[in-house]
């Protein structure tokens, strides 16, 4: 059977990246003083999977390096060597090297051979630190190993709901029964909870299943085939390699398949590796012969069914388990979102035309439209949610960044991640990475003091940086908090004077903090390669503003600094209020609206040279007549006859004066810039139910335009 392996290359490369990511994460989380065996096993598994895959697909350079990596990891997980900091660094370096090599295979720049050799030698040297210890797991070696070499291997996983062995069942007896069926290896044992074995011998799972019928219910035990090294009988037509399609990822139950949960995987994959190292072989005297007689000759029919379903199921199952997801290009998702947007618009057009039809005569049409509305709304929500990803996709890279930076700068910093599961639009997530990295670097470089300084000021030696994400109303708040020195007001002011930045006589803290966003502003005494060149905070602010977000700073000297990034949930859809001026329709972002009212005559005041204000509960808000700023022909010019919408802008509250509020509605944001250009005071456009274009107001910009207009232009 010849298969074109290259069709799997992308899958392998994607998986390899995933494994590398997992490894890196686990390595960083590893506690050197008390390494968790489970984590070490997981790291080992990741390395092993890469090695297996790269071997199969002919990426020999990868395989060789991972082999060295695996050798060292193997010793760690068998506890013949204790992990050291040097090893972790070597592992991380190796991860980087591996991903560079993967890139090279995808057409990226080639990796220097000597680097690879160097890394291999380093790993092997580390591995040779202590002599090899004997194998720990599984005891006796079977004589019949050769005979059974080609027999199928089953993975048995028992997860009783009750404590089985406390009752009538005896564990030794059960293992003996199992051993009677073939070569048995005990993979993991947690008395009272989970047990797993690997059994080599029976042609089908029927005898094993039968055996467990006496012990527990069918759903408490899962029996899965593990692909053997060679392709056996007529059963499984399609194996690439046992290590590339990590064995037995779906549980084969006669009637149904369910996914193996995470906890089971360690045992399974370990088993692949252990397979050639030794097998326990137990013989039972009393019960065995009967069992074997009844079980071994399996019904041919069942085998046939199994074999037909297997080939198709396997690769699919392996991938499904990998992340329970499919990979789809972003552009496909965006296209889907656009199409759904069109559908929603078409539906509203239909609804509008149908509203002129007699509801009695055309009842069916009306009912149909109501259903269509519900379905299209659900569809829109579902499609939008495809683009949402947990923010962990960005947060995930930071433990590494922090580790590297702290080592470079001889500081001690612990990174705390909060709310990693918060979901955010994919487009935003990608754009967040750079500003966040920058802020994090700043926190480590400028915020957190050196251990000596910290101890001297009575703080714990280790600084803490908290990276948190949370939903707040219609937006997402991402905060970076450090417990460092805080911003230095005096230093900032001094620098501002030096640079001749405009400043009020007695600036508030908030105004002073804003200074750091000025281009070229840095108070760092010396320029490090980390930060201090003063190109940064202005870029951060610009990036965030591009995402329609805001940057907030809060700092207390000696206690720390918090930088908050407030971002919209998604860039594609907006909750808006439609409003009318003359015969033009506009959309106002709903999140900005505080209230709306019709003012009394005594609430309106004119301030000489500063235009009109409206007094609302003791507050004087500037009046922003939309028709003036956008030069429209309004229906009413008297605020008492129109309506005032109080909106929050980044320069304070303003009262927007419009003719009429129409309705609240979700709109799909379309860019004006695709075919036109940026329009002052307008942030985008959307298509209304009747097919017309409506513009979305950029309220911050409008407020500024209003205050810039000379008083002479104003309408008194």
């Amino acid at each position, binding site marked *: 059977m010849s298969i074109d392996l290259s069709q799997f290359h992308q899958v392998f490369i994607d998986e390899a990246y995933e494994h590398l990511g997992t490894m890196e994460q686990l390595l960083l989380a590893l506690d050197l003083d008390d390494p968790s065996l489970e984590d070490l096993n997981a790291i080992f598994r990741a390395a092993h999977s890469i090695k297996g895959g790269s071997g199969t697909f002919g990426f020999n350079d990868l395989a060789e390096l991972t082999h060295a990596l695996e050798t060292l990891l193997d010793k760690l997980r068998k506890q013949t060597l204790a992990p050291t900091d040097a090893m972790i660094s070597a592992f991380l370096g190796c991860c980087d090297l591996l991903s560079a090599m993967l890139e090279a295979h995808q057409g990226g720049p080639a990796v220097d051979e000597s680097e690879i050799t160097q890394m291999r030698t380093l790993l092997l040297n580390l591995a040779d630190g202590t002599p090899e210890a004997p194998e720990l797991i599984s005891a006796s070696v079977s004589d019949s190993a050769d005979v059974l070499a080609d027999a199928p291997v089953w993975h048995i996983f028992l997860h009783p709901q009750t404590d089985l062995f406390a009752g009538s069942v005896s564990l030794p007896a059960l293992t003996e029964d199992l051993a009677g069926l073939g070569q048995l290896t005990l993979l993991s044992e947690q008395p009272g909870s989970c047990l797993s074995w690997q059994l080599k011998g029976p042609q089908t799972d029927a005898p094993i299943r039968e055996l467990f019928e006496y012990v527990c219910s069918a759903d408490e035990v899962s029996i899965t085939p593990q692909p053997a090294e060679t392709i056996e009988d007529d059963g499984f037509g399609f194996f690439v390699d046992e290590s590339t399609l990590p064995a037995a990822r779906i549980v084969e139950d006669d009637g149904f398949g369910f996914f193996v949960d995470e906890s089971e995987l360690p045992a399974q994959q370990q088993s692949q590796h252990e397979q050639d190292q030794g097998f326990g072989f137990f013989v039972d005297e009393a019960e065995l012969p009967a069992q074997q007689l009844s079980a071994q000759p399996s019904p041919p029919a069942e085998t046939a069914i199994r074999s037909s379903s297997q080939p198709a199921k396997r690769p699919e199952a392996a991938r499904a388990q990998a992340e329970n997801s499919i990979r789809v290009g972003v552009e496909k998702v965006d296209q889907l979102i656009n199409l759904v947007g069109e559908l929603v618009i078409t539906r509203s057009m239909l609804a509008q035309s149908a509203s002129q039809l007699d509801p009695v005569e055309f009842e069916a049409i009306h009912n149909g439209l109501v259903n269509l509305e519900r379905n299209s709304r659900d569809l829109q929500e579902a499609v939008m949610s495809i683009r949402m990803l947990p923010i962990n996709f960005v947060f995930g890279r930071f433990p590494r960044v922090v580790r590297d930076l702290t080592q470079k700068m001889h500081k001690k910093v612990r990174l705390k991640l909060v709310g990693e599961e918060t979901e955010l639009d994919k487009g935003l997530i990608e754009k967040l990475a750079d500003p966040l990295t920058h802020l994090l670097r700043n926190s480590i470089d400028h915020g957190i003091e050196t251990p000596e300084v910290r101890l001297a000021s009575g703080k714990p030696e280790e600084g803490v940086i908290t990276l948190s994400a949370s939903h707040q109303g219609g937006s997402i708040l991402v905060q970076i908090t450090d417990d460092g020195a805080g911003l230095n007001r005096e230093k900032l002011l001094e620098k501002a004077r030096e640079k001749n930045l405009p400043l009020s006589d007695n600036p508030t803290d908030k105004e002073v903090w804003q200074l750091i966003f000025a281009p070229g502003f840095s108070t760092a005494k010396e320029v490090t390669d980390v930060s201090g060149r003063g190109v940064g905070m202005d870029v951060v602010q610009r990036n965030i503003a591009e995402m329609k977000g805001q940057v907030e700073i809060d700092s207390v000297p000696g206690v720390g600094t918090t930088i908050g990034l407030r971002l919209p949930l998604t860039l594609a859809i907006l909750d808006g209020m439609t409003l009318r001026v003359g015969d033009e329709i506009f959309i106002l972002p709903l999140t900005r609206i505080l209230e709306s009212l019709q003012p009394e005559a005594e609430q309106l005041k004119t301030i000489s040279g500063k235009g009109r204000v409206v007094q609302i509960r003791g507050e004087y808000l500037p009046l922003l007549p939309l028709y003036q700023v956008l030069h429209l022909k309004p229906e009413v010019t008297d605020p008492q006859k129109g309506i005032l919408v109080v909106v929050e802008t980044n320069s304070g509250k303003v009262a927007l004066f419009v003719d009429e509020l129409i309705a609240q509605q979700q709109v799909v944001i379309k860019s004006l810039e695709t075919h036109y*250009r940026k329009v002052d005071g307008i942030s985008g456009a959307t298509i209304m139910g009747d097919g017309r274009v409506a513009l979305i107001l950029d309220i911050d910009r409008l407020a500024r335009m209003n205050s810039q207009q000379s008083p002479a232009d104003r309408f008194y």
Partner: protein
Amino acid sequence: MTDIAQDSINQNLMQEFLTFTLGEEEYAIDILKVQEIRGYDAVTRIANTPDYIKGVINMRGVIVPVVDMRLKFHLGNATYDQFTVMIILNLGQRIVGMVVDSVSDVIALNPEEIRPAPDFGSTFDTQYLLGLASVGERMAIVVDIEKLMTSQDMGLIDQLAEA
């Protein structure tokens, strides 16, 4: 034989142009730049823009600006009724709608039939002209529409982005 060969060469070099009128003048543009021709309706006005930018329309989900050439070049009467036509142009990455008095014809021209334009006599700046061509009795002004529409004069494109 040679005539046929010559003809086919000419055929290959022939380019088709769409002609339209603005006031008294007839203009021709490369037909490959034309996406479609449609009636003038439902234009959303954009504030603080020159009067010749009529606003934006929804072209099957795409938001497209509309320019009234009659206003831009002070030709003809800018009236809007059921006979007003819009030529939708597809210029590389951009789509632009252009209002004209009327669309007249599709003509095929050989490159040599397009004569260089004298440096006067046209409302269009000569840098946007490819030349003049005679169509029967009349004369058509051949315009490099892409260059014109993406120029600073039209103000259709963010100049910041260009710089």
